[in-house]
């Protein structure tokens, strides 16, 4: 774990790709140009780290039709040094962040877990595992996640297995983070361990797939999630091709937007692209909305009425007496205004 900043890290960030020959291409498209393609569509992002995002993101997401999200517990960019940091982080996922999201009309769920990178700190991992059940069973927690492998170490495997058992006991779906390096083997290993523990693959979402992993994931009965994340994971043109090839069954798209260079609008943009490329609306709906709901509803914690029925956030609501609005601010302001009042 990168505890000494002078040591070369064994855990390259999301931007460091092992495949440096890949040249990303961009095409500028203004919101005005693609909003008509996704008009009336409703999106569910089953993987996004809002703790790293701004209110601007929430505003744009709501405008683009994202009505509900799942925030998996993950790595905040640097290793946590004590149990209290984990407690506060987990508490924020069921507390403040959920409230902040609701202020923009977006229903916020989360998954709870000890992430693979930090599983390598055994002393801390033991302590976290002790309190994890107290968070896993909280209201609005729709799964154990994101768990799995990073470096594929012995300790990562140990805590992955323990958390699979917790998921079984708590009757919660599992959200698997597949490793950036040695992905294909890591993905296979994650799945075979889940099966070894007797998990029903229809309760397991395997995340961050690519063209190399998708077939095996689907063949074995797991949900295959794809992360549209610039440079490192999936591009959305590749995603369109995957949907064209494999259809919509058990496939879902997410943004994984976090503290790295990522895009919280990855789902609506991909939906627009799919629409442009002639993919039928019902297929788009499955991979950008319904499949995520079906997979995570097994937790018993999702009531679609909470986000399918149009609602206006209450601008005067407070979380524990605190508001996101400072000094009489309104939650929706004009971004085009020169004057910031």
């Amino acid at each position, binding site marked *: 774990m990168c505890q000494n900043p002078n040591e070369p890290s064994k855990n390259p960030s999301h931007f460091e790709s092992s495949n440096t020959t890949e040249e990303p291409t961009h095409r500028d498209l203004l919101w005005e140009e693609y909003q008509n393609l996704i008009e009336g569509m409703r999106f569910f992002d089953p993987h996004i780290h809002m703790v790293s995002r701004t209110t601007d993101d929430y505003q744009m997401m709501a405008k683009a039709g994202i009505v509900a999200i799942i925030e998996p517990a993950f790595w905040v960019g640097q290793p946590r040094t004590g149990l209290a940091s984990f407690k506060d982080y987990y508490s924020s996922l069921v507390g403040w962040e959920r409230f902040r999201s609701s202020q923009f009309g977006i229903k916020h769920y989360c998954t709870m877990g000890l992430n693979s990178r930090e599983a390598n700190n055994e002393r801390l991992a033991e302590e976290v595992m002790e309190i994890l*059940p*107290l968070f896993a069973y909280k209201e609005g927690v729709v799964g154990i996640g994101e768990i799995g492998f990073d470096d594929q170490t012995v300790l990562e495997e140990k805590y992955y297995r323990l958390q699979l058992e917790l998921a079984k006991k708590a009757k919660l779906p599992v959200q698997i983070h597949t490793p950036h390096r040695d992905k294909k083997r890591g993905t296979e290993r994650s799945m075979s361990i889940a099966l070894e523990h007797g998990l029903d693959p229809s309760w397991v979402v395997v995340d961050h797939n690519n063209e190399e992993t998708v077939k095996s994931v689907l063949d074995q009965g797991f949900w295959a999630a794809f992360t549209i994340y610039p440079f490192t994971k999936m591009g959305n043109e590749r995603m369109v091709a995957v949907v064209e090839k494999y259809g919509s069954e058990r496939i879902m798209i997410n943004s994984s937007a976090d503290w790295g260079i990522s895009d919280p609008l990855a789902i609506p943009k991909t939906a627009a692209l799919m629409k442009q490329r002639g993919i039928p609306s019902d297929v788009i709906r499955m991979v950008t909305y319904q499949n995520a709901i079906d997979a995570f509803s097994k937790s*018993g914690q999702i009531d679609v009425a909470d986000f399918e029925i149009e609602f206006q956030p209450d601008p005067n609501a407070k979380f524990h*007496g605190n508001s996101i609005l400072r000094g009489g601010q309104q939650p929706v302001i004009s971004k085009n205004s020169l004057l910031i009042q």
Partner: protein
Amino acid sequence: MENILTNLTQFLFEETSVAERAWLEVQAQSNALELMTAFVAAPRFISKKNVTYDSQVRENLISHLPGFQADGWNLVRLSRVWLLLHLESEPKEQFIKNIETLFDTAELNELVALYSALPLLPYPWEWLARATDAVRSNMGFVFDAISLKNPYPELYFPEAAWNQLVLKTIFNGKPIHWIYGLERRKNKELSISIFDFISERYAAGRKVPAQVWRLVGSFVEESTYPKLVQLFASKEKEEREAAALVCFESKNPQFRSLLSKYPELELSIQNGDLDWSKLESISE
């Protein structure tokens, strides 16, 4: 403890379905970690319906603990309190650690249940810091759980903490008559703070809820006299009534003679038609 559990169990089981009761009974046999997990997981197994509560029958739900009420709770909150009573209380250090862990990891509704349970838990003095901290909280529901209809503060709060609780309840615009033991723990220090508060409010052209005067009646001094004259001149009936009640409670003849200028009010107090309960407005 036996008595507490027996009464609470009977009350709880009257409200639960067969499946809910079965789940609760299994949890009650569990070890500490499983019980703590059940405390968190309760909404997955127990409905959130409000418990029906007949205050005539249940005036004292726990006979030796008057003031403990479950009125208006939902079944999850009641079940959580009940589950906590099944945690092994020995060894003491482990019990305290378990309760502290639940506090540290609690979300809002769990905090409410924890504070509701404080008067029932063993080692009551151990929770004093948590309880006074909850009074400082900005979380409305948490504040209510410790401050209103909860016998813990009256039993264990030192005077300064008690006074803070009462003042903050007034500041928050909550009904002070829901503070259990309010009459018994009136004190001089509190009355001074409240006089100051009333003066500040009046100086700012604002009002105070009429029933706040009930906390100062026994402590009025000469210097308060002009304020009471002012209060008698109020257009608000409730304020005139409050002035009359303060004068009636005062031992000072000057105040009694002020009251005699308002014979109708004096008479209605003497007849028992007017007392502080008539000024209790339930605004939340």
